[in-house]
């Protein structure tokens, strides 16, 4: 039983990592948005992800015991311990990059959280329930923007095409559970995205088509997030994010 608890803790931590790292990237848009309304909307999305990270980490901390808190998970783990999927850590890029990443992730989470609501772990199910509503709002946004920018101008189309190409290879690992996750899937705790890849793909295809864009036929795929094998971007993100916290060991804020 103790071992299962550790595994759920690790699973919750991973989901926290995904949310925190992505939330951090979106928060980098603050005061950089294309207009004020978008600054507000992007702030909302960033807030939702940071909030989600806090729920997952708090649950992981509860399972870890020993007085651990959400901040221990966010601020005191190293690059190699973070297990977020790589797509979340890529730099914010231009607005097209951010929108395409959100589209991929929002469609994904729409399925993921719907499944996680049915988890046999009631805490995870509860977090999923709270988060799903936000994700539906995010998805409306990223879908609408994809269509607007796909159809808008030559430049916006070019940028969206580039973003699709640059991001496509990072989507594959989202559907490849490792041993830990397979074990938790079999216990009805974790979500099995292998089965939902076809749905994800068909949703994305439909939206991309409506946006008069095309799915890349590139065959590359980069993997490694769940093993802590990250791109060079994550360590700089953590360097910045953890700096004040680490410079003052043991302080309260």
């Amino acid at each position, binding site marked *: 039983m103790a071992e299962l608890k550790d595994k759920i803790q690790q699973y919750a931590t991973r989901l926290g990592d995904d949310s925190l790292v992505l939330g951090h990237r979106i*928060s980098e848009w603050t*005061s950089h*948005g294309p207009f004020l309304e978008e600054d507000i909307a992007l702030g909302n999305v960033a807030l939702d992800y940071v909030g989600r990270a806090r729920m997952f980490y708090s649950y992981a901390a509860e399972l870890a015991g020993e007085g651990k808190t959400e901040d221990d998970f966010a601020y005191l783990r190293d690059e190699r311990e973070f297990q977020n999927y790589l797509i979340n850590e890529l730099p914010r890029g231009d607005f097209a990059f951010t929108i395409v990443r959100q589209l991929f992730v929002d469609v994904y989470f729409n399925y993921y959280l719907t499944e996680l609501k049915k988890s046999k772990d009631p805490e995870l199910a509860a977090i999923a329930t709270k988060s799903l509503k936000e994700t539906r709002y995010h998805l409306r946004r990223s879908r609408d923007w994809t269509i607007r920018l796909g*159809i*808008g101008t030559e430049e916006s189309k070019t940028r969206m095409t580039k973003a699709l190409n640059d991001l496509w290879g990072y989507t594959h690992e989202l559907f490849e559970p490792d041993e830990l996750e397979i074990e938790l899937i079999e216990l009805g705790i974790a979500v099995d995205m292998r089965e939902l890849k076809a749905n994800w793909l068909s949703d994305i295809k439909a939206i991309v088509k409506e946006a008069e864009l095309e799915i890349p036929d590139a065959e590359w795929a980069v993997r490694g997030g769940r093993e802590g094998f990250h791109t060079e971007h994550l360590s700089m993100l953590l360097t910045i994010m953890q700096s004040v916290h680490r410079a003052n060991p043991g302080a309260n804020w």
Partner: protein
Amino acid sequence: MNSSLSDLEQAFQAKIDAEQKIEPKDWMPAKYRSNLVRQVSQHGHSEVIGMQPEGNWITRAPSLRRKAVLLAKVQDEAGHGLYLYSATETLGTSRAELIEALQTGKAKYASIFNYPTQTWGDIGAIGWLVDGAAICNQVSLQRTSYGPYARSMIRICKEESFHQRQGYQIMIELAKGTPAQKAMAQDSLNRFYWPSLMMFGPHDSDSAHSAQSMKWKIKRETNDDLRQKFIDQTVPQIEYLGLEHPDKDLKWNEERGHYDNGEIDWEEFTSVINGNGHCNRQRISHHVAAHEEGSWVREAQNAYNKKMKARRASAA
């Protein structure tokens, strides 16, 4: 015509004297309109530019709770900017004109944002002192004579006092924290106290627009009165934190029932406004860069809307 204008003016002033609100479609003197545009847009620009110094620490906030609170706060500022820009638009000035005036330096924003945020403590000090000073002013403006402005002030005040409490809470954590944290709190207080006093503007005797603005109830209290209120309320807050007061000449004046304060360095005030602050150029060039970076998005959105309209038209 002259006499009828004068009639209009009299009726206008009578309405104001009777504490009735002026609404967008009402007649108003050209000068009332332009003063209001200046004041409301400056206020709006301050919210927008104010996102930068605080945004500087979102990625480094030292706990997840503080990160979320700060994100929400900066997002609120964007919202306040929007309310105020909308209020200015009711006076016939478009968003594009507002942005141009900000970027070319024709319009001002609160000079406090020309000071840099150097440490996390500055996020506490800004919330506590800068938002605190802003609230003193904004509370009085809830009764301003222009309807849309007064109503946005009511919404904004509610959120700002929330922000001020959050800023003060950061200061409490620091002041009761490790020696390094306490030093950080003192340092931020020292740097932001005086510029906060300057936020109320020059002494009444030196204030250019005050008399007319008071008469039109665009302003409701004088710079010095508002400043005094702020000075008085801040003393016990500093005491509670156990920090040293930055004003060594501060003294309780039994007779006035207020604190007498040391001299404000108005030369510094003028100097920073005139371009010698650490961040004057940075704030504007950041705004320009973001605006330019976003131009293709705005163009795409317009193009999309036109295309959709055309397609609907040809389908019909």
